[in-house]
């Protein structure tokens, strides 16, 4: 049996061009570049419609990652950067995006992007990235009304999950499914701190717990941790989950049970929300007459 290649952090880098949009007819071409700790995206919009995007792993530094993601997005197009009317950098490396006219926080961009990608009914956006958890409340225009970002502590982040997958020797992409291959639901790991949760898990294994049970106990602890952050801003439907963790049902299905709300089904790659929001802000600023002269 061939081993299935489903590693979460080894996702395929993708780029895409819309077959329906002709950039030549657009009044404003705006670009959003989201440089995250793990992945970077560039989204190019023509008058607020997805025209092209590139999604790839973040490289050694932010400027290179931004440029690479943008080149990747442009690869299959005949569009050139001098046609851009506005470019906004966002994400962890947002101040180091060389082609950006300004930067906007990922909080604002994720809300704006989720409003566009999931529709104006979204009121709560959760983004779980490699190194942070963002809980965002927004109005029907995608304007942020409250937010909380936790980027100091690895508990509940993608990195925390990666540490656990390493400890248990389970490919990260299998974590979600395997955490449900158990009888009953174990008590969540009690330590919030990833370092202490690791020793707790080692203890459970020695007591004879199966790997999948420990996975389940950790996924449940992650869900509780994320829930505690969401609770601080309050959860109001509709609820959208962006970022990489959206693909881990071990955590998301347990989180769903805690909050009692079904997240919206994504139409686009969940990782694009930040860059899409940035491109939309660029468009709004162009329409206010603040775009590049040209």
């Amino acid at each position: 049996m061939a081993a299935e290649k489903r590693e979460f952090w080894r996702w395929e880098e993708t780029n895409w061009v819309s077959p329906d949009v002709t950039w030549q007819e657009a009044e404003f071409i705006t670009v959003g570049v989201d440089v995250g700790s793990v992945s970077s995206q560039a989204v190019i919009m023509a008058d607020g419609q997805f025209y092209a995007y590139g999604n790839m792993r973040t490289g050694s530094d932010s400027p290179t990652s931004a440029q690479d993601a943008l080149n990747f997005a442009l690869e299959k197009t005949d569009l050139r950067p001098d046609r851009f009317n506005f470019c906004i950098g966002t994400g962890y490396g947002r101040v180091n995006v060389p082609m950006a006219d300004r930067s906007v926080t990922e909080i604002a961009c994720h809300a704006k992007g989720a409003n566009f990608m999931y529709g104006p009914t979204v009121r709560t956006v959760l983004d779980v990235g490699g190194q942070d958890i963002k809980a965002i409340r927004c109005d029907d225009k995608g304007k942020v009304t409250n937010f909380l970002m936790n980027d100091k502590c690895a508990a509940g982040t993608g990195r925390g999950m990666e540490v656990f997958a390493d400890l248990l020797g389970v490919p990260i992409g299998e974590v979600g499914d395997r955490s449900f291959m158990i009888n009953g639901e174990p008590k969540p790991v009690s330590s919030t701190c990833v370092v202490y949760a690791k020793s707790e898990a080692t203890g459970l294994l020695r007591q004879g717990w199966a790997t999948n049970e420990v996975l389940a106990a950790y996924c449940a602890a992650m869900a509780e941790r994320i829930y505690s952050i969401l609770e601080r801003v309050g959860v109001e439907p509709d609820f959208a989950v962006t970022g990489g963790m959206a693909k881990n049902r071990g955590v998301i299905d347990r989180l769903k049970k805690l909050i009692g709300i079904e997240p919206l089904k994504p139409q686009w790659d969940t990782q694009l929300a930040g860059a899409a929001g940035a491109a939309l802000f660029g468009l709004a600023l162009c329409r206010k007459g603040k775009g590049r002269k040209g």
Partner: protein
Amino acid sequence: MPATYGYSNGSGSYFIAIDTEKCNGCGDCVAACPANVFEVVDEDPNDPFREDPLVIVRQDKNNKVKYECNPCKPLSDERPLPCVQACKAGAISHSW
């Protein structure tokens, strides 16, 4: 909007909220804070459409506010925080 900075970890929650509707970017809190936690910015990083200056928690302080703010929070002598006191608009609050 309450712009919330800081974090929570296993030991507790350490958040500083700045109400962006109340904050006028005067910078009195910047002068009052002995740990240089705040700064005035011309563009709201969370709202590209805002035209007025605003105070934010500096990015390099955001992930250690628990430690940076400790000197203003002696356990035996509960007194008003300099930043909260300095803010005439009443825009700043601490969660701990």
